[in-house]
C-alpha cells in the first residue's frame, strides 16, 4: 500500500472539506469519480493532489458532469470497487436519477455532500435543500456538526454502507462554508489505524468476474420491482443497528462515541431544540448560557436522518414540554422535513405529547446568530406558558418582514 504513515494521531488545523479529503486518502478507495462544485471543490481538489503525488492507488476519473460522476461511481462499484465522490447543491441535483440507481442497485458508493442551497435564485451558501430533496433516494444520510464529525463519519462510512445486511450508498453531510471552509483543530487519526478500521472491500457479484457472469440494472416490472424495493427498505432498517455497531467500534478504536443522534442537556429539558449540522454548535452555547439563568433547555442533534431513528427519538423526547424544530430547508406548502419526522417520532413513540413548533432558518446561508437562538428559545417559552404555539407555527427565522 502506498505511503502509509504509521504513528500517533495528530491534532491538526484543517477545513471540513480538507478533513474529508484526508479521510479519503486514508481509505484509499479503488475509484473516485467527481466533478468539482462549490463548496465541495476542496475535497476533490485535495484528493486529486494525493492522486498526482502517488499517495493513493485510486483510479481518479475526471468526468464532464455530476450525472457522469455518479454513473461512473455506480459502474465502478458494480465492478467490485470501493468508490467515493463529493458534491454539493446543483451537482447533486444533476445526479438525481443516478442517486436512485445507486441505492436500488445496492451499490455502497460513499459521498461527501457539502450542503449548499439549490439554485433559484443562484446562491452558493449553506442550506440543506440538496440533501433533504434527496432524502427519499435511498441513501444513508449522516450529518456532521464539526470538521471532526465530518471526518469521523466518513471513516465509519465504508463499514456501514458495505455491511452485508445494509449494502446501500451513504452520504456524509456537512455545512457549506460554515464547516467546509472553516479551519478547526481536530484529531486526524493514524493512516494505518484508519485503514485497519475500515478494512478491505468485499465485492458483491462483480461484473468483472467473468467466471460468474451477471447482469446489473436489468428491466424490473410488476412481478419483481416491489420485492426489490422491499429488500432495499430492509437494508435501511438494518442500517439503524449497523450504524450504532460501527459507531461503538469506532469509539473503542478512536475514543469518540457517536449515536444515531446526540442529546445535549436533554434529560430534564422543558424546551428542546432540534437541528442538524453546524447550527448545533451555536445552539449548545446558548443552551449553556440560558441554563445558567435557570431555563431548562436542551438540544437533540440528528446524526442519522436516513434511516430515521423514530423510536429512539420518541423516547428521548418523552419528558420534553415543547420541541422546537429548526429546518434549514423549506418544503413549500408544508412544514420542513425535519419537523415532519420529529412529529412522527413524538406522536407514535413518545409517551408524552409535547407542543411541536416548526421554524425554517438559514436558507442560502442566512446567518443564525446566538441572539436568534436566544429569541427562539424565549418564544418557545412563551408558547409553553400559553399551552399553544398559535400563530408562531411555521415562522421563518431572521427574515426581514417577519417577526422571529
Amino acid at each position, binding site marked *: 500500500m502506498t505511503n502509509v504513515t504509521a504513528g500517533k494521531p495528530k491534532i491538526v488545523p484543517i477545513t471540513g472539506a480538507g478533513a474529508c479529503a484526508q479521510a479519503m486518502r486514508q481509505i484509499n478507495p479503488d475509484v473516485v469519480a467527481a466533478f468539482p462544485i462549490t463548496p465541495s471543490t476542496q475535497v476533490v481538489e485535495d484528493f486529486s493532489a494525493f492522486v498526482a503525488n502517488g499517495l493513493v492507488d485510486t483510479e481518479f476519473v475526471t468526468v464532464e458532469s455530476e450525472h457522469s460522476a455518479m454513473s461512473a461511481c455506480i459502474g465502478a462499484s458494480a465492478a467490485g470497487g470501493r468508490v467515493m465522490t463529493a458534491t454539493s447543491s446543483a451537482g447533486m441535483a444533476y445526479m438525481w436519477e443516478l442517486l436512485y440507481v445507486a441505492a436500488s*442497485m*445496492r*451499490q455502497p458508493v460513499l459521498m461527501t455532500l457539502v450542503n449548499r442551497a439549490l439554485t433559484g435564485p443562484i446562491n452558493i451558501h449553506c442550506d440543506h435543500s440538496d440533501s433533504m430533496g434527496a432524502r427519499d433516494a435511498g441513501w444513508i444520510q449522516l450529518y456532521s456538526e464539526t470538521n471532526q464529525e465530518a471526518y469521523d463519519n466518513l471513516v465509519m462510512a465504508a463499514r456501514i454502507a458495505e455491511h452485508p445486511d445494509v449494502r446501500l450508498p451513504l452520504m456524509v453531510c456537512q455545512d457549506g462554508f460554515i464547516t467546509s471552509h472553516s479551519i478547526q483543530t481536530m484529531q486526524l487519526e493514524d493512516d494505518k489505524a484508519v485503514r485497519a478500521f475500515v478494512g478491505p472491500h468485499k465485492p458483491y*457479484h462483480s461484473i468483472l468476474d467473468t467466471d*460468474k457472469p451477471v447482469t*446489473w440494472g*436489468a428491466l424490473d416490472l410488476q412481478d*419483481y420491482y416491489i420485492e*426489490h424495493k422491499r429488500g432495499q427498505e430492509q437494508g435501511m432498517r438494518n442500517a439503524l443497528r449497523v450504524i450504532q455497531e460501527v459507531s461503538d467500534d469506532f469509539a473503542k478504536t478512536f475514543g469518540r462515541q457517536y449515536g444515531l443522534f446526540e442529546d445535549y442537556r436533554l434529560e430534564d429539558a422543558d424546551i428542546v431544540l432540534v437541528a442538524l449540522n453546524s447550527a448545533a454548535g451555536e445552539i449548545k452555547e446558548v443552551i449553556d448560557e440560558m441554563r445558567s439563568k435557570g431555563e431548562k433547555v436542551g438540544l437533540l442533534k440528528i446524526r442519522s436522518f436516513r434511516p430515521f431513528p423514530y423510536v429512539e427519538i420518541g423516547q428521548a423526547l418523552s419528558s420534553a414540554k415543547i420541541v422546537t424544530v429548526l429546518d434549514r430547508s423549506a418544503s413549500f406548502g408544508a412544514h420542513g422535513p425535519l419537523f415532519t419526522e420529529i412529529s412522527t417520532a413524538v406522536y407514535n413513540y413518545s409517551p408524552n405529547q409535547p407542543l411541536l413548533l416548526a421554524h425554517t432558518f438559514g436558507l442560502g446561508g442566512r446567518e443564525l446568530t446566538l441572539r436568534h437562538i436566544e429569541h427562539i428559545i424565549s418564544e418557545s417559552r412563551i408558547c409553553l406558558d400559553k399551552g399553544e404555539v398559535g400563530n408562531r407555527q411555521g415562522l421563518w427565522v431572521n427574515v426581514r418582514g417577519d417577526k422571529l
Partner: protein
Amino acid sequence: MSTLKNWQDLPYGGVIVEAGSAAKYETGTWRTWKPVTHREHCSHCLKCWEYCPEDAIILEDGRDSSGAARKFVKEVNYFHCKGCGLCVRECPVNKDGKFVALGFVRDEV
C-alpha cells in the same frame, strides 16, 4: 403454485446471477396482437427473423431448389413473441401487397 420468489430470497439490487436467464422470461404475456405465418406465401427471406427483437421466429433446416442447405421459417415462438409487429411490418411479401406471408391478428390471451 407461483414460482416467483419472496423478497428475502432475492440477491440484492436486482442483480441477475444466472447467465441467459432471459430465455425463461415469458414476454408472450405482453402480447395483444400476434403474428401468424402463412408458409405458402413465405419466400423464406428471413427478414422477420433478423428483425425480431425477442428471437421468436423459429427456423428449421432445409434445402433450396438447387439442393443447397439453408434455413427456412418454421413458426413463431409464442412464449417469447411480445407482439410488437416488427416482423409483420418488415416482411417484403407483406409490403408487396399481393399476399400476406405474416398475418397479424388479435390475440386471445
